[in-house]
C-alpha cells in the first residue's frame, strides 16, 4: 500500500533543461575535428511527484547516471535548474547543502565499492548519522532499525563485520540501509542489482519495493534493464545521448512504445521464453558517441523512420496521450508510422 498519493499537487523534484557539459581534449582534438565538449546531459526536463517511482532507462552513454549524480549534487549542472520541494538545488552550498543531502540519498551499483572496506558495517552506517548530528547514544539503535528495515536477519551479528565478510546481496542491503537511515525524501538507485547474482537480485529488489512502499519514498531507478525497471517503476523516462526520448507510464511504454528508439529497445530485450521473435531490430547500427551527436534529433542516424525534418530540428517533448515523446513523427502535422 502506498503511503501517499502520487497525484498530489507540487512535484517533489523538478528538472528543467538541465545540462552537464564536460570539456575534454584540447586544441589538438579540435583541430582534428573532434568536438571538445561532451554533452553528457543536454537539456533534460521532467518532474517527479512525491511517492512516484520513476525509471531512468537507457544504454551506456545516454546520461542517466550523470543525471542521477546531478540530482544528488555529486556533479554541478552546467546549465538549467533542479528544484527540490520548491527550493532550487543547483546553487546550494554549506549548511543548506547538508540539509539537502539528508533528504536525497543514493544506492550504488557495486556494493563492495560503495562501502569502505576498512570500515565495519557499524562505522559505515554511522557516518550519515554523525554528519546529521545524531547523538552517539541514539546511533546504535537507529543502525539496528535500519538493518531490520532491509530485512537483514539478526542485524546485531553484522555490526562488527567487514564488507568482505558479507555476500553481495547482504552488502547491498547494507548500502540500502545506509541510504535510508536518515529517512530521506527521495532515493536515487543506480543499477542497484546489476552486480548481484540473478537469484539474489529478486530479494534485493523486493526489499526495495517493500521499503519504498512502507516509507512512501520517492525513487529514481537508473538502469539499462527494462525488465527490472518495469518491476520497480510505474513510470519510465527513456534517455538517449543526453536527451529524453520518451516519458510515461512503464506499462504503456512496454506494451506500445512510441518513440522509434524505445521501439528498438523494447524489441531487443530477451525474455526467458523459448519462442521469442528473432526479427531484426528496427534500428541502424553504430554506437552513440556523446562527443559527436548528430545534428537535429540525436537519434536520427539510426532511426528507420528519419525524414528530412530530423537533421534540421531538435524535436521537443510533446504530449501524446499519457506520455511525452520527443519525435517529429508525433508532431500534429505528421502521421504516425
Amino acid at each position, binding site marked *: 500500500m502506498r503511503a501517499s498519493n502520487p497525484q498530489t499537487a507540487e512535484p517533489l523534484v523538478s528538472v528543467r533543461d538541465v545540462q552537464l557539459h564536460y570539456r575534454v581534449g584540447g586544441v589538438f582534438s579540435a583541430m582534428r575535428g573532434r568536438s571538445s565538449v561532451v554533452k553528457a546531459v543536454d537539456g533534460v526536463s521532467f518532474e517527479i511527484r512525491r511517492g512516484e517511482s520513476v525509471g531512468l532507462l537507457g544504454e551506456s552513454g545516454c546520461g542517466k547516471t550523470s543525471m542521477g549524480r546531478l540530482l544528488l549534487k555529486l556533479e554541478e549542472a552546467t546549465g538549467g535548474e533542479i528544484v527540490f520541494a520548491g527550493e532550487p538545488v543547483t546553487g546550494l552550498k554549506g549548511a543548506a547543502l547538508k540539509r539537502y543531502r*539528508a533528504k536525497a540519498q543514493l544506492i550504488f551499483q557495486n556494493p563492495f565499492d560503495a562501502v569502505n572496506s576498512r570500515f565495519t558495517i*557499524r562505522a559505515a552506517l554511522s557516518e550519515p548519522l554523525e*554528519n546529521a548530528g545524531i547523538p*552517539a547514544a541514539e546511533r546504535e539503535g537507529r543502525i539496528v532499525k535500519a538493518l531490520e528495515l532491509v530485512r537483514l536477519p539478526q542485524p546485531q551479528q553484522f555490526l562488527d563485520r567487514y564488507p568482505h565478510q558479507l555476500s553481495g546481496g547482504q552488502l547491498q542491503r547494507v548500502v540500502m540501509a545506509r541510504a535510508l537511515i536518515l529517512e530521506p525524501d527521495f532515493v536515487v538507485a543506480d543499477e542497484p542489482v546489476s552486480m548481484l547474482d540473478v537469484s539474489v537480485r529478486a530479494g534485493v529488489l523486493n526489499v526495495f519495493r517493500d521499503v519504498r512502499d512502507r516509507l512512501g519514498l520517492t525513487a529514481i531507478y537508473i538502469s539499462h534493464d527494462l525488465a527490472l525497471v518495469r518491476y520497480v517503476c510505474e513510470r519510465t523516462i527513456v534517455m538517449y545521448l543526453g536527451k529524453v526520448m520518451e516519458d510515461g507510464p512503464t506499462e504503456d511504454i512496454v506494451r506500445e512504445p512510441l518513440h522509434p528508439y524505445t521501439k528498438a529497445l523494447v524489441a531487443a530485450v530477451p525474455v526467458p521464453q523459448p519462442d521469442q521473435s528473432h526479427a531484426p531490430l528496427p534500428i541502424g547500427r553504430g554506437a552513440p558517441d556523446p562527443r559527436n551527436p548528430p545534428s537535429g534529433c540525436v537519434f536520427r542516424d539510426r532511426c528507420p523512420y528519419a525524414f528530412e525534418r530530423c537533421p534540421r530540428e531538435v524535436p521537443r517533448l510533446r504530449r501524446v496521450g499519457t506520455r511525452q515523446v520527443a519525435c517529429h513523427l508525433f508532431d500534429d502535422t505528421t502521421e504516425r508510422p
Partner: protein
Amino acid sequence: MPDLAIARPGLPVRLFRSLRLPLNDRFAVFGLAIYAIFVIAALFADQIAPYDPTEILYTEDYDLAADLRPGEEGFLLGTTSLGRDIFSQLIYGTRSALLIGITAAFMVALIGSIVGLVSGYFGGWVDAVFMRLADIAFGIPFLPFVIVLAAFLEPSIWNVVLAMALVLWRDTGRVIRSQVLTLRSRGYVDAARVAGSSDLKIILRHIAPNILPLSFLYGSIAIGWAILTEASISFLGFGDPDSISWGYMLQDAFASQALAKQAYYWFVPPGLCIILVVAAGFFITRGYENILFPKLGR
C-alpha cells in the same frame, strides 16, 4: 565517554597499523634491524661512546693522541690526526645522521602527502598550482641547490632538511596525487559526500589511511637521500663544522690525507655506516613495495 557507535581502535593503534611494517620480507626485516641498531646507538651515545667526539685527547705520556691505529692506547678504531677518538665520532655520528634523516624524511613525506591529498582531491586550480610548483621543484638539481643554500645561510645540518623540504616533496606529491585521484572515484567517497561528510572528513577518514603506506614508502626512501646528501655536503666542506657527522669524518680524513697514510680505520667505518643505513632504507622500501604492489613480482 567512549563513542559506542564507532568501534574503531584509537589513533595511535590505527597509525601503527597503517604503517603496515613489511615484516614478511627478509631484506626488510634486516633493514629494520639495522635501523634499530643505529637508533639504539644514537639514543645511548653518551653511554656507548668512550669519549667526547670533539675532545682532543692525549696519551698517558702527555703526547697528542694523533693518528693512532686501532687498538693502540685503548682506542677501538684509532684516532684522527687531531687526536680525536674515531669510534666516539662514529657513535655520535649516528645522531646527526638519524636526526637529519628522519626529520628530512618526515618533512618530505608530510609535505608531499599534504600536497598530493589536496591536489588530488580538489583538482581544479589548486591542483594546477601545486603541480606547476612540483614541476619547478623537478627542475631544480638537488645537490647544487643545497650548496647554494649553504652559501646563503649559515652552514648547519638543518640546511639539508630545509632543502629537502623545499624540493624533494615532488616525487611523493605526484605519486600520492595519482593514488588520491583513483581513490576519489571510488564509490564510498561518493557515498560519504552524499551522506553529508565534509571534504576534510572525507580526506582524513577515507583517503588518507589508504595513502599512508605510500607516504611511509617515500619517507623511507627519503631517509637514505638525506643521509647521503648530508654526507656529500659535509664532505665538500659545506657542512656544519660544529657537529660531527659521518660526512664530516670523511672530509676530515680526506683533508688529513688519510688514504696516503693508509688510515683505513678512519674513513672506512663512516663510509660503511652510510652504506648500511642507506641500504637498510632501501630494503625497507622494497619490503613496502611488495606490500603495496604485490603484482610487481620477485
